């Protein structure tokens, strides 16, 4: 069953087009992450689904009901905001019950729901406190609780972890995932953090300029990005892009400088036969080095230029042709600038993009 369906939604602020006839179908119980840099329209889309912004064109369905003209409270959604947006003058309990009181629920039902939310989020001891007496993580828990008590099918998260420090962020990330597994309701989650997107999502929608570039599982988005933008946005450290020429024929190869990368094992999007200027993308973690590199379809000796130790592993920068290529080595493998090292990779794990359209080949 489709839980949330966005059909041809556009939104203009004056002459600025923020969303351009956007379509999105979210299944019941699915965790969708809207991912993109600031200004790509992801938060705007979420606000449209919530009913906080009126769309300029198109329709929004929630649980197969057309809610395009409905008020936020009537849409069956709960929303969690980046700045928590807790009512500062109310206690935690007051914050949780505010919406329920507005809906005119009986006292007993309100108490029951608040108690349940407090139990799920472990904020029971905080109920009598004011938001100002809570830490950032506790505040965001209360904010989630406020969506929880509404007993709705769809949760909307607007960058809920962006105001927290790194450690809390990873803790709450796990907690949101646990919450989703327990409640199993639809969640739409906006973030610019690709780690959050990869770890949480059933499907990720990568957005740019008011359009969804790719909507797929995290694994597909990571391994088979549809264009160069998505490839560059996902993955940290970022994918290596090598400009060169693709030569079709009996044994197709990607030529860069004096190197020829055999790409006969590469699966093209539609059959093959491409040739001409192209970009070859390979992720640093897919570049092997030393002994394992010898067995790769493509291998080559390169010179180390920069070494960036990151603790868990080390990022090494070198050159192929005259273009930068980074790769990861174990942190115990000590390399110095100027060292020669054998690297290699399997083009089947790479991505190639047309130089002009930047689409996947």
């Amino acid at each position, binding site marked *: 069953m489709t839980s949330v369906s966005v059909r041809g939604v556009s939104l203009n602020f004056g002459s600025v087009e923020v969303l351009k006839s956007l379509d999105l179908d979210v299944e019941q119980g699915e965790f969708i992450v809207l991912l993109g840099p600031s200004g790509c329209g992801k938060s705007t889309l979420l606000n449209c689904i919530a009913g906080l912004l009126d769309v300029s064109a198109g329709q929004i369905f929630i649980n197969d009901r057309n809610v395009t003209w409905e008020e936020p409270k009537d849409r069956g959604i709960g929303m969690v905001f980046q700045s928590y*947006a807790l009512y500062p003058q109310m206690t935690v309990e007051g914050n949780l019950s505010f919406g329920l009181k507005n809906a005119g629920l009986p006292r007993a039902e309100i108490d029951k729901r608040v108690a349940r939310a407090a139990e799920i989020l472990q904020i029971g001891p905080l109920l009598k406190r004011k938001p100002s007496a809570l830490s950032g993580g506790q505040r965001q828990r209360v904010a989630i609780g406020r969506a929880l008590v509404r007993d709705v099918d769809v949760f909307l998260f607007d960058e809920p972890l962006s105001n927290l420090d790194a450690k809390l962020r990873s803790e709450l990330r796990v907690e949101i995932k646990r919450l989703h597994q327990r409640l199993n309701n639809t969640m739409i989650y906006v973030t610019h953090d690709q780690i959050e997107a990869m770890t949480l999502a059933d499907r990720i929608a990568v957005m740019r300029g008011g359009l969804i570039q790719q909507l797929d599982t995290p694994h597909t988005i990571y391994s088979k990005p549809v264009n160069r933008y998505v490839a560059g946005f996902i993955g940290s450290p970022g994918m290596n892009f090598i400009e060169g020429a693709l030569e079709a024929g009996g044994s197709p190869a990607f030529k860069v400088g004096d190197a020829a990368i055999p790409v006969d094992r590469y699966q093209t999007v539609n059959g093959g036969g491409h040739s001409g200027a192209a970009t070859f993308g390979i992720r640093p973690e897919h570049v092997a080095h030393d002994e394992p590199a010898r067995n790769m379809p493509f291998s080559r000796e390169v010179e180390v230029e920069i070494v960036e130790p990151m603790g868990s592993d080390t990022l090494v920068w070198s050159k192929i042709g005259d273009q930068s290529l980074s790769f990861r080595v174990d942190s115990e493998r000590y390399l110095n600038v100027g060292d020669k090292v054998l690297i290699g990779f399997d083009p089947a794990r790479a991505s190639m993009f047309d130089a002009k359209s930047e689409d996947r080949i």
Partner: protein
Amino acid sequence: MSSVSHVAAAHMEPMIAAGPSGPRPRRSFSRRNIFIYGTLALVSIYYLLPLYVMIVTSLKGMPEIRLGNIFAPPVEITFEPWVKAWAQACTGLNCEGLSRGFWNSVRITVPSVIISIAIASLNGYALANWKFKGADIFFTILIFGAFIPYQVMLYPIVIILREIGLYGSLSGLVIVHSIFGMPILTLLFRNYFTSLPEELFKAARVDGAGFWGIYFRIMLPMSLPIFVVAMILQVTGIWNDFLFGVVYTKPDVYPMTVQLNNIVNSVQGVKEYNVNMAATLLTGLVPLIVYFVSGKLFVRGIAAGAVKG
């Protein structure tokens, strides 16, 4: 290698070389300090001296005043002038003192302040959070009202009040004060509400609160400082008003300021400086108390409301 040297460092005595160490010494009698505090003291004296003269004069009897030593403290303290100013001073025919004007002013100020703040805060809230079509134009026109000189509107308002039958009454003056407070108060409230996080407003909408619900349950409780600012502005402004009071009311409902003027400027008999001083102090007492009681909140509110445009 590096870990070894760390261990060694931890066991060494901290070495402090001769020369500057710790906080930098500061002299309290530097030239800079003398200049700053000297200037401040001079300015304070300049402003406080007239107040001092008024207080001491109001506590003297007339024979002592006639000696002409206006800076000398009273030899014999008397509260007679204060009592006279409050209860016996004459304006024209009635000799009830300032007390009548005081109660008139209270009856003008209290409703004017409440009405103007209630309407202006709603205006500001609507302009900040419920943007309607033409909201910006409406706001511009409203603000423009703050720049029109009062003199231009004086006579037209006389006619309007006469036509609706409120000329010369207290309620007429209350309406005038409420309207004239609108531009600046709306600006104040709109700027303050704009500075509150927008997500709070969104969250309340998701929670099903409407226009009034959000105003009373979310916005109002967060806006104490700006309400205090508005209250101070209005109380002092309306209490100190002379022009509207003298134009739009009749002698039996004159506010305190107008009555003070009539007492001080009465030409018959002896000029009773002590009574005049006491009457003036009595009139200024209300704004003075308001400032002293809420000064801290005032500064906080002004800062909060003024920064964001």
